[in-house]
């Protein structure tokens, strides 16, 4: 892996995004917009937004970044540019690293926006420290990117890649504890829910979670990000059969 090729690849991806401002605007604003909408719907029910809002900071960035990453990488695979890159002195880690770095920057801006707006304009009070929701929102975005990179290997068309969203995201949402607390889930499901990446994000932002517990959940998310990035590099094949 070369730092130079990784940063230049990240720079190339950011340049691509710069030529597509509509996508950038959607990626950056949709999570914040959704949290704002939620705050609005709960306006007549004091306290409720403080209970639910923080946890959604762990859900929306993941979803948005998962979609945008899987479609972008799939396009790289199907357009022939990935194959072309792999005929050059470029390693798979350079490419995956470039994507991770570029979308890390996007997720960073996105998380600052969503957490910043939540604590100011949308009137979120809980948790005291805005850095924790910001960090978890950032990691949630990175989780989306890392899994988007890993799973796009399984898709052969953009249509399939989009279908991965309901298949990959929605089950995690159901099991994340947002609707039914994880501790109330039937035995088999509870074990599954305990290890899902989105559950870690939601739990880290649960108002009742201790700082220690939240730190643990944050580390789980970091481990998932690293694991999925490695998986993404492994599933990138140099040859076709």
């Amino acid at each position: 892996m070369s730092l130079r090729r990784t940063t230049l690849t990240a720079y190339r991806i950011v340049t691509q995004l710069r030529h597509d401002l509509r996508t950038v605007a959607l990626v950056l604003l949709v999570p914040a917009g959704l949290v704002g909408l939620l705050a609005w719907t709960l306006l007549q029910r004091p306290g409720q937004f403080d209970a639910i809002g923080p946890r959604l900071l762990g859900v929306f960035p993941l979803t948005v970044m998962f979609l945008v990453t899987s479609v972008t990488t799939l396009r790289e695979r199907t357009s022939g540019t990935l194959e072309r890159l792999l005929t050059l002195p470029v390693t798979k880690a350079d490419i995956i690293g470039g994507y991770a770095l570029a979308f890390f920057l996007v997720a960073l801006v996105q998380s600052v926006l969503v957490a910043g707006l939540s604590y100011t304009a949308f009137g979120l009070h809980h948790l005291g420290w805005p850095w924790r929701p910001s960090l978890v929102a950032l990691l949630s975005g990175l989780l989306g990117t890392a899994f988007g990179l890993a799973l796009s290997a399984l898709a052969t068309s953009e249509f399939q890649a989009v279908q991965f969203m309901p298949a990959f995201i929605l089950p995690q949402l159901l099991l994340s504890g947002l609707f039914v607390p994880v501790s109330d889930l039937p035995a088999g499901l509870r074990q599954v829910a305990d290890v899902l990446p989105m559950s870690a994000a939601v739990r880290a932002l649960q108002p009742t979670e201790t700082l220690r517990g939240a730190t643990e959940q944050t580390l789980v998310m970091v481990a998932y990000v690293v694991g999925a990035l490695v998986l993404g590099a492994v599933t990138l094949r140099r040859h076709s059969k």
Partner: protein
Amino acid sequence: MNSGVDVQHLGVIRRGRAVLRDLSLRIEPGELVGLLGPSGSGKSTLMRALVGVQRVTSGSATIDGIPIGSAELRHRVGYVAQSPASYRDLTVEENVRYFAAMLGIDSSDADRVLELVDLSERRRDLVSSLSGGETNRVSLAVALLGEPQLLLLDEPTVGLDPVLREHLWGVFRQLRDRGLALVVSSHVMDEASRCDRLVLLRAGKFIFDGSPSTLLSRTGAGTYDGAFIALVKDTA
């Protein structure tokens, strides 16, 4: 160092079908070889095998003495895939500069190759706003970056007008005279006459290897199209 291409009994099986069968071929530096054959005969597969993105199931091949697929070969071989491989949401120049950076060469080389393929004027345009032939030339520019010893060009002149085609064949001949080996695939038989040597592929096997004039005399055909049809039918 520079010893050309050596293919020995190369075979490729894709999804249980033999796509390339027992191919052997030597290409010397300074040779301009036309790779011809009906659609589906395996021209692209052969090039993709040489450039290391298609798994070879039997036999072997080397480029400048180095086994195909080796990392050392990656800055020695320029390649244009059949379908253009460029980022449509980047400008022409951004594309070429990125690939130059990945090759580890100075980005000023981008100016030279854009001049060669006659795209200097469109350098600030997004690839998505180019015509089909212009888009192909972006890929060609990328293949010319650096100092490749071998150029594998899969139908590089598709969609180009006669003037531009003439110009590019002039570029290919110049590169050959500088000692590069070039393999250019094509459907257009008229282009055959511009090569030093023609190799015809049919159903994954070589059915002819010789000069354009030999192709005409062997088949007794008056045109290259006629010779192609005669050969393909003859060996069916």
